[in-house]
């Protein structure tokens, strides 16, 4: 029961990646490689044995890897993903949403030790929940007791304060759709926002369009959110995007029972089902 060191884990990742490529079934391994800055890595597709040696494992491996599996929805060969706990839940999310096929994936799970990313403090599942091969000893699941604390604090503000806060946030939004593109729950083949001729979403990046976009996205992914925090991490304008989706999760937990997204391939998202005895607050 020894914890693997960072260097040893990196070595194991490279070994497993090479093994996967050598099997001939896998076309590429998605992991992280170094950049010119020591405190940054980038998502990297290793396609040859030499490139596998470029894969790294360090506290700066913060980009999600799972979403890259959607780049090719009908692959000839498997794609191998290096998964942390959050990435594995992202895979579950996309499997559940029928966007990916398990047989098209080869999953190399790595027990994560938390990264240089604020969201990692809130992580409840450091061990991947789905994998073909696991690197490291499964870690004990943690409970993050403050999961909804910020939401509760925010709810205490007056309605006008809340509106003003979000309005100021949406004024900053530049409509880059990074949150959507990074989000594993945003896995529609074509996003409603890209169908702009239909008129759902205006192209202008002003407050009203940003509000519509922000709330639509929050509601659309709210019950399927896996709380990986990618949306907030990628936002160039630092909008607190998870404060919307977590609000949905908080209400789901209160109204329909304990719920966490992406724990298994079978779970039904809250808005994809119902119970006859659901609360009936309307008349």
């Amino acid at each position, binding site marked *: 029961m020894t914890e693997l060191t960072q260097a040893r884990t990196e070595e194991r990742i490279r070994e497993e990646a090479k093994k996967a490529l050598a099997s001939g079934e896998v076309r590429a391994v998605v992991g992280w490689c170094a950049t010119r800055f020591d405190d940054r890595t980038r998502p990297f597709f290793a396609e040859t044995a030499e490139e596998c040696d470029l894969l790294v494992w360090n506290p700066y491996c913060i980009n999600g890897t799972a979403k890259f599996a959607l*780049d090719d929805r009908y692959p000839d060969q498997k794609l191998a993903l290096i998964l942390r706990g959050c990435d594995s839940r992202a895979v579950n999310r996309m499997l559940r949403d029928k966007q990916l096929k398990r047989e098209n994936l080869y999953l190399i799970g790595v027990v994560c030790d938390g990264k240089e990313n604020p969201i990692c403090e809130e992580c409840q599942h450091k061990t991947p929940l789905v994998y073909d091969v696991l690197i490291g000893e499964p870690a004990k699941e943690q409970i993050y007791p403050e999961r909804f604390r910020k939401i509760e604090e925010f709810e205490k503000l007056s309605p006008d304060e809340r509106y003003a806060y979000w309005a100021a946030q949406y004024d900053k939004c530049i409509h*880059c*759709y990074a949150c959507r593109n990074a989000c594993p729950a945003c896995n529609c083949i074509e996003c409603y926002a890209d169908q702009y001729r239909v008129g759902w979403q205006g192209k202008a990046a002003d407050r009203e369009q940003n509000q519509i976009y922000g709330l639509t996205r929050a509601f659309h992914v709210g019950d399927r959110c896996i709380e990986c925090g990618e949306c907030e991490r990628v936002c160039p304008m630092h909008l607190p995007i998870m404060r919307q989706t977590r609000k949905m999760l908080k209400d789901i937990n209160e109204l329909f029972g304990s719920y966490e997204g992406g724990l298994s391939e079978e779970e039904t998202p809250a808005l994809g089902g119902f119970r006859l005895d659901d609360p009936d607050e309307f008349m």
Partner: protein
Amino acid sequence: MIISKLNLNKALQILNESAQVFVPAFEVIEDRAAKKSIREKKFLPYREDLEVELEGPNTVKPPKDILFPNVEKLYQYKAAGEDSYIRETLPEETPKILFGIRPCDMRSIKSMDKVFFTKNYVDSYYARRREYVTIVAIGCTETDRTCFCDSMGIDPNTAPGADVMMNRIEGEEAYLLHAQTEKGEALLKNLESLEGPSENVKAIRTDCTLKIRKIPDLDRKLAEMFEHPIWDKVTKGCIGCGTCTFVCPTCYCFDIDNENYGTEGCKYRCWDSCMFSDYTRMAGGANPRPTKKERLRNRYMHKLSYFNERYGETLCVGCGRCIANCPSHLDISEFIEKSSAVDPKAEVYTESIRAAQGKEA
């Protein structure tokens, strides 16, 4: 002319009397739920209580939206029998002063001028805004780790084309200002009352942090590399968002759409991004740039090759904003180095450790 740092606020107040002054300053949003405040450095209309920061790192968003707003109404119309009309809505401009923009951003405005003013077409909306703007540029005193403008042929200490050039004075809390145009001279006249002593002063000189190896004729080399396997590799990590284009000071693409309310409506233009699927989507649904590979290739090519062909200069000004903000940490400077070094006729491209790490040889 020399103006002490202590008089800076006074100078801004004087200028703000006759024009609207935009300065790099911190916008603060109170987040009471998380008990913290969010600070964002951006160009803001001057107010006395503003926390102005001329030096330090550059703003996250470039000042381009003051000349080329994110959303701009072009004309409004009504289709109702005899009441029908079409009315152009040229911006009603008042004098504006862009105070404290960096040499890279000044260069980007000059590139936008080329786009909106040359090749036999003048964009009247941009022209109107540009006419009313006076630009006070400041030489960098501190550069970010992603700054590489001098590798792109820009000097971080001078800003040709700015109306007034401003530089920090070595060893003193003061700035040296000199007019570069008539507009600039007029502006400095207003500030004469604040003038400090000017003997034996020397302006600070700064160098970029990031030095990259770029071959001089990269634009022509890239033009031959459209089908090069390097594109497959460097675009794999992209998530296809529009961050790089929206924080870029030289991305000027826009889309035109309309907003209708009953019989009335307006035509507006708004920023568009070549990273989006609908940028090249044809009416019938065909898309010549179906994946992020084609889209990112277009962006890099536009910055480094196509614009050279059309206007004779590189469109990337080396401000480093796309590097700093890319969610996937893609790096155009790394691409410049890799493509400078690569064999343009190669049929296979494999990342090597040195290239992937982007470290100096």
